[in-house]
């Protein structure tokens, strides 16, 4: 059952070269889609496959593509979100560096389905080496006719460019990403209008995560039913879980959607280091609410994790052992979001800053009674009241930590005073 899809050939040397990729049957899906299928068929198949976004929000990719107006005089754009910045997340880096052609193939098919002729990969600035590799792969794809004019003789044109970010977590938010691509500050846009109708350069735009698009060729090759069978009925396929923190074997693990969190940590990632006990897990990147050790018997799919009060996010699992004071975790969380707030809206700019100040003072042993409550109130004040999802991202972990580990936080105050 544990059969890898996306990462199946990652062990091969030079998979990132087009010759190797073609040897492994690469670009067959693109050929099939572009020469045998109509765009609507591709769209329909992806919809049926219940491919949910791998970036964080878990929205259905097929629906997202469907929102783009069919009949429009405006150019349409595809933006690939490779601004992997959520702490704990590194899965897209693997795809980009090991198998860039898989992503390119996914981009070609997605663009064909939506009728897009210009696509950008927004890659985070730190991934310079990977960006160069991707650019090389794109050049190869152009050379072999998988990009450019009249791809595979289908009459379909697509240009693909790499756009490097410059260090801003907020640009992973889709509208901030668009602003950044337009050469502006990465301030999120007010919604509505949504990018599907008014996106990049004011034109209809699809924004998808790297892993999401990498799944597309397999759906085309093997069909939606096959894909669904890999995962769950409303959340198809496999996911690349990135495990880091206090485990023996940190790394990426491609597993079916719905694999249990306990299994991932203890079976695949080798469990905790000797003599340590599990204290807590952050299941979907730093912005997801924390789970206590006793809460990890859950299935890892978008809906189940949500039901457990957390979120699947980017499936980046951060494991925390009993030697780590929870205040330490809280400090990192607080520092990160205060640093990355764009500063446009009040609750996020000031709220994250106040959280950081309070956490700092607690960490310095100057905490006051009621600080944990203040954190809870501040977090509640941010959540759902900000311009973009980053407010929620900042508030949720703080809220969950302050709530679930309130006793420990308060105890740490007493010890120090």
């Amino acid at each position, binding site marked *: 059952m544990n059969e890898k899809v996306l990462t199946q050939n990652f062990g091969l040397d030079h998979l990132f070269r087009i010759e190797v990729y073609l040897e492994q049957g690469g670009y067959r899906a693109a050929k099939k889609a572009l020469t045998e299928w109509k765009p609507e068929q591709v769209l329909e198949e992806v919809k049926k496959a219940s491919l949910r976004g791998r970036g964080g929000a878990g929205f259905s990719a097929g629906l997202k593509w469907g929102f783009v107006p069919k009949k429009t005089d405006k150019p349409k754009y595809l933006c690939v979100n490779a601004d992997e910045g959520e702490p704990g997340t590194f899965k897209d880096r693997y795809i980009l560096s090991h198998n860039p052609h898989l992503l390119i193939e996914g981009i070609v098919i997605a663009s064909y389905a939506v009728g897009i002729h210009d696509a950008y990969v927004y890659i985070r600035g730190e991934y310079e080496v990977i960006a160069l590799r991707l650019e090389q792969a794109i050049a190869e794809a152009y050379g072999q006719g998988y990009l450019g004019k009249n791809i595979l003789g289908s009459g379909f044109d697509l240009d693909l460019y790499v756009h490097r970010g410059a260090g*801003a977590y*907020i640009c992973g938010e889709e509208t901030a990403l668009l602003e950044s691509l337009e050469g502006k*500050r990465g*301030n999120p846009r*007010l919604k*509505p209008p949504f990018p599907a109708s008014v996106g990049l350069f004011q034109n209809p735009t699809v924004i998808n995560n790297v892993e999401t698009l990498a799944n597309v060729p397999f759906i085309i090759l093997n069909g939606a039913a096959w894909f669904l069978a890999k995962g769950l009925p409303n959340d198809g396929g496999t996911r690349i879980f990135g495990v880091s923190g206090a485990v023996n074997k940190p790394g990426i693990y491609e597993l079916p959607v719905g694999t249990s969190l306990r299994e991932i940590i203890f079976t695949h990632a080798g469990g905790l280091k000797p003599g340590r006990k599990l204290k807590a897990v952050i299941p979907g990147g730093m912005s997801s609410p924390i789970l206590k050790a006793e809460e990890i018997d859950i299935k890892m799919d978008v809906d189940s994790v949500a039901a457990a009060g957390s979120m699947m996010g980017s499936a980046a699992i951060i494991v925390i052992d009993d030697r780590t004071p929870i205040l330490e975790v809280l400090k990192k969380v607080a520092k990160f979001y*205060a*640093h*990355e*707030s*764009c*500063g*446009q*809206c*009040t*609750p996020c*700019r*000031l*709220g*994250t*800053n*106040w959280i950081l100040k309070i956490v700092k003072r607690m960490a310095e042993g100057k905490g006051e009674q009621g600080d944990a409550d*203040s954190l809870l*109130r501040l977090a509640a*004040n941010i959540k*759902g*009241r*900000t*311009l973009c999802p980053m407010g929620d991202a900042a508030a949720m972990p703080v809220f969950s930590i302050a709530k679930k580990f309130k006793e420990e936080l308060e105890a740490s105050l007493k010890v120090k005073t």
Partner: protein
Amino acid sequence: MARKEPRTETMEINHRKVSFPEGVTVHRAAELNGVYIPSLCSHKDLSPFGGCRLCMVEIEGMRGYPLSCNTVAQEGMKVLTDTVMLRELRKEILKLILSEHPSSCLVCNERTECQDYQGTIRKAGVTTGCRFCPNDGQCELQDLVEKIGLTEMDYPIYYHGYEPEHDDPFYDRDYNICILCGRCVRMCQEVRGTSVLAFTYRGPRVKIGPAFGRSHTEAGCEFCGACVDVCPTGALADKVSKWDGKPDGCYVSTCPFCAIGCQIELYHKNGRFSKAAANIDPEVNDGQLCVKGRFCLPEVTHHFERAKKPMLQKGNYFREVSWAEALERVAAELKGIQPDEFAMLVSPDLTNESLFAAQKFVRDCLGSRNIDSTARLELGGGLGLWSKLFSLPISIKNIAQADVILAVGLDSRFNFSVVGTKVRKALDRGAKLVTIDPRDSNLARYTDDWLRPLPGREGLLLKFFADSLAGRITDLPWVAEETTVNVPLLERALEILSSSKDLAVIIGPQVFHYDNNEALGDSLMTLAERKNTNFIPLYFGANARGALEMGVFPEIGPGGMSSRGQGIGLEEIVNGSKRLKAIYLVGDIPFFERPDCDFLIVQDIYLPPFKVDAFLPASTFAEAGGTLVNMEGRVQEVVQVENPPEGAVMGFMRPDWRIFADLANSLKGNSMNYKTSQDVLREIRKTVPDFPARLGRKPRRMKAIDHPEIHKPTVGKTSEGDFLLVAEPAGYRHRGIDISSKVGGLGELALEEGFRMHPGDIDSLGLKNGDRIRLSFDNGKVSAGGAVRADVECPRGVIYYTRPVVFGGLKHRRELLPLYILKQNPIRVNVSRIGT
């Protein structure tokens, strides 16, 4: 183009059925229906920002708390704006905002005592104490705290410790009390198109400011003050009035500085006019002003040099005297002379009432024909041409609706800013812009086709376009050669212009000031025959159109009727062809030296720079009521803000019309029986046929005066030289004074100083910025010197300087005198350096 009125729709706000025009936001719909939704960052002219989060509401069927500023109101929507949950939520957000806004007076326990016993105003930037901020009592944030009912703070106040910035003219900035609502940034970028202000850094370190931490002046600020007007806190504040405290009230009046006639709000405190701000008046300026209207009014009125008492030359002394003595003396002098030995010059900055009273005084009371106005100097091309221009439909508001705009010599940074904002609005709606300007201008950046002819040839270009559009035969290669604009650019411009359905033609003041503007006049008349053409001829001299209607010219009487026979006017006085016994100057001083006469009367707000025999102190716009006619023909009211009793402290100034009436009464007894400006207005309505019976501020078309145009051939032969010298009209003038000599900030900007040249030209002459140069022309017979200033906006081979039309208060620019009296513009000159 038919403009569709938006449909009216209905929705429910707080269980009440309300109607609203289609397409507005929930916030605006509530506002239109008198429902208050708190907000600190939204503004009617600006795009939604979503920063403050206070305007969140509950809408049935929508998740969470949507922002009312970014949610379009829809038919049948059910909105709640003031639930317990929302109130709680707003309080919490407000607490966060206040944590970064060191103004503890908002929630201080001793707030009431503090207000009751507030004795002095502390100006120092201290973090505690209610007087930290100049905006106390007029602060949106403070109001909001009051309305939301916040009484306690949960967070300690965080002080950023930014240094307050006082280096720029006109306004101070203290970003410690900035709440980052971004209104100023959006105003600067979206409405003004200036992009001086922006957010820098991010997260908690976000700060607003110009690029590179430079001063606003260096960053290209136009000092329109729109950012100050929209600032909800005291972070941005006028220098002049910031510590005045909350004004007692305000009047809506008309700006007296140019012919646009912007509606302004004049604030007053303790009976004194304290500051001016833009009025949201959709007809003309719609909340926008330029630096003159926004910042220069109080200083022009209250400058310490203001002349406040009547004065007479008595023997060797120039003495302050009572009104009775002054009037008696002037009346006695005037009684003793023949009507032909007297002449009066009036300024186009006076109100209609004063202009009318002036001509009546001269014509009826003295029986003289010799009244003329310096409006002539502003209306280059002759009064006949202008009366024709004024007979066309002129609409500033409709510039925004144009699909093609042709701007000739327009730079809207420091003058005519409002026109610039309308042009931008049109461009935002997809209009095309063709610019004819040898100089780089702020609009050239947005332009679709920028034609840079030789200075002085703009008229030729315009004539080419006018003739081409009218289907006449034109000679494209010849025009291209004469104007030095290449053929493809001309063809492109013609293509754009031909495509227009709604053309706006904006003519900057410079173009009217060339000596030869025959082509310009012709082309304007040709263009006028085209359908749907909106002309905007720009000129200084606020009430020059009123001067035409009131008839203050020898050849033109009230209502535009030509009076028979010629009188002695400006030209005769300036060139001294007839010596007069008495000259009476009202408001303008078109001389450097005292004109040759026996008795010189000056009636103005400041003393002239030479000896006069009688000085009569006049009221400014803020001290006297009246009406002005703007370029569109709107009759607009100037409101009297200050009305103190005459006395040693506040002064003895009187409105101009009243001084004429007083004099008339001293001469003949009760011949001009005016008690208020209303009395004069009533008589104007009787005498001037087209003057509106009621002040409706409607644009009017004037009847063209059938007056034979005198085309004066260019005087003198063509001069030789390496450079072309262009005289620009002065924009900072009001009632005979150079405003920048009274307003410190404007002086700092030094917009009209020196000879402006392209830095490349300065280099090629081996000069440095600031070096003094000598210009010589007429084979070296005449020359003048001054400092040179590098200005990248100048074309190569051209030198610009500002020729004032009035010379009062221009002492420091006297060395330029030989240039000021030059008849030729532009003229070829040679340049040499003064000194080593």
